[in-house]
């Protein structure tokens, strides 16, 4: 494995009854990189994340974080889903500090950090609002801040923008890249949207279903920062064509 790998999967696989959700898979993720995972529904993307997060025990193999085995253990990654999972009975500020509240006492420093992060990323006005008062995009941003303040170096984002409309989505993508640049985390990002996977990442893993496995590992050479023009960049279109063919075959 690369010396700078933060995460390593070694022959990690999972079978549910008759379904091979994830074939034994090996993988190394470089520290500080942004890796996108695309693949059709049911190809085992979420299963892989659940194994990394420690929610599911793999049938075999090992998960290593910073070269330490963490298979089946929780509490060492940031995790975010398409559902924002904000709790409606807490304010934005208290939702951001949720992880701390669930594992100990929230102290003044935690609250102050939550407020700082919220202000920095444009939600300072809404600290005392309940989530129900926010738009979908704002809610996802709060959910992401909640993930950020856990200070986990590795973030697993499972289709975080899947429920947003195209316009909001593009804004959120640009926002995410900004935050990623600021905070220097490692991001694993699941999406169904090929444009999104290319727009965001340094590297795209393409998966195929039944049995779920990684069929391609594509390095994305597109320059940063990325703008709307990136989407019509010839390099972008080439990678897109490549992925589309992997996903949908030559002709539909």
């Amino acid at each position, binding site marked *: 494995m690369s010396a700078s790998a933060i995460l390593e999967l070694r022959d990690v696989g999972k079978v549910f009854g008759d379904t091979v959700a994830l074939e034994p898979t090996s993988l190394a993720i470089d520290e500080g990189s942004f890796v996108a995972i695309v693949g059709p529904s049911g190809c085992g993307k979420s299963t892989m994340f*659940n194994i990394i*997060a*420690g*929610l599911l025990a793999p049938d075999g193999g090992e998960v290593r974080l910073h070269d330490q085995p963490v298979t089946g253990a*929780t*509490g*060492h*990654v940031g*995790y975010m*889903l398409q*559902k924002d*999972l904000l*709790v*409606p*009975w*807490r*304010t934005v500020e208290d939702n951001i500090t*949720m*992880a701390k*509240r*669930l*594992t100990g006492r929230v*102290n*003044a420093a935690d*609250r*102050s950090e939550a*407020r*700082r992060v919220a202000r920095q990323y444009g939600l300072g006005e809404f600290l*005392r*609002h*309940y989530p*129900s*008062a926010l*738009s*979908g995009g704002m809610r996802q941003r709060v959910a992401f801040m909640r993930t950020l303040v*856990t200070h986990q170096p590795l973030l697993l984002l499972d289709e975080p923008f899947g*429920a*947003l*409309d195209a316009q909001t989505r593009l804004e959120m993508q640009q926002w995410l890249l900004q935050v990623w640049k600021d905070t220097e985390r490692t991001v694993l990002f699941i999406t169904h949207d090929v444009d999104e996977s290319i727009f965001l990442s340094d590297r795209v893993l393409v998966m195929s279903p039944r049995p779920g496995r990684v069929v391609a590992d594509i390095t994305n050479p597109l320059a940063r920062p990325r703008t709307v023009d990136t989407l019509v960049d010839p390099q972008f279109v080439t990678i897109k064509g490549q992925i589309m063919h992997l996903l949908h075959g030559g002709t539909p």
Partner: protein
Amino acid sequence: MSTRETTTPRRAGRAGTDSVARKLARNVGVPVLSIVLLFALWQGIVVYFHVAPYIAPRPRQAVLAVTQNWSTLWPLVLGTIRETVYGFIVGAALGIGLGVIMAKVPFLQRLVYPVLVLSQAVPIIALAAPLVLILGFSVTPKVVIVAWIVFFPVTVNVLDGLSHVDQDLMNLARVYGAPRWRTFFQIEIPATATPLFSGLKIGATYAVTGAIIGELAASDGSSLALYQEHANTNLNTAAVYGTTMLMTVIGISWFLLVVGAEVFATPWQRRTVARRRWRRADRSDEEPAR
């Protein structure tokens, strides 16, 4: 996708948000109006059909029967309130406890649920006398009867609420490394607040009926139910209707108190911004007051 739930228009559009005055009129004025209409109807029937006073009194007489005997009635009312409140608390606690246990132990749920349904199908009046024989003449049998009525909707709703807590949210707590008990108090309990309060409100509505049944069966010489029973023997129908009104008022007040508790305990249901909190010490980096 917009944040509005409906894509196509509603038939009856509502113009903007309502003023405080309108809200007050709707939430207080209309209920008061409907109760006034009810009394008017009562008065109308008694007058129009020349109903004899020993058959049914006029509203005024019923009210007077209460106000003129207030010094006698007040301690009885307090007694009924005490039984109602104790029974309600016991029933609510039992209901929550059972709901939680049943949610956590599925086998127990299947084993106990039929017995709970059975308990509600037992005519409560057939139960009062045996309870008194077992528990004696203290406040206990009344508390038991009230609790018997109250616990069921609470249990059912808590069970339902806990069963519908978002599993992804529970898993997220696990990813954070949260211990089970913290997850329970920080996530499962508040997530169950709305169904819990629904159950409590149903229980509150019927709690006084339970207390009255208990008072009829287990009295130590004086109680609101007995006062009514004796007024009935006296053919003092004004007092009979008056005490019925009094019982109803106790029931409704308790119901409204629970509604109030809900409003207080679940501000996120009605507000977009949280109230200012007392805790200020740690707000050192708060924006300066505007």
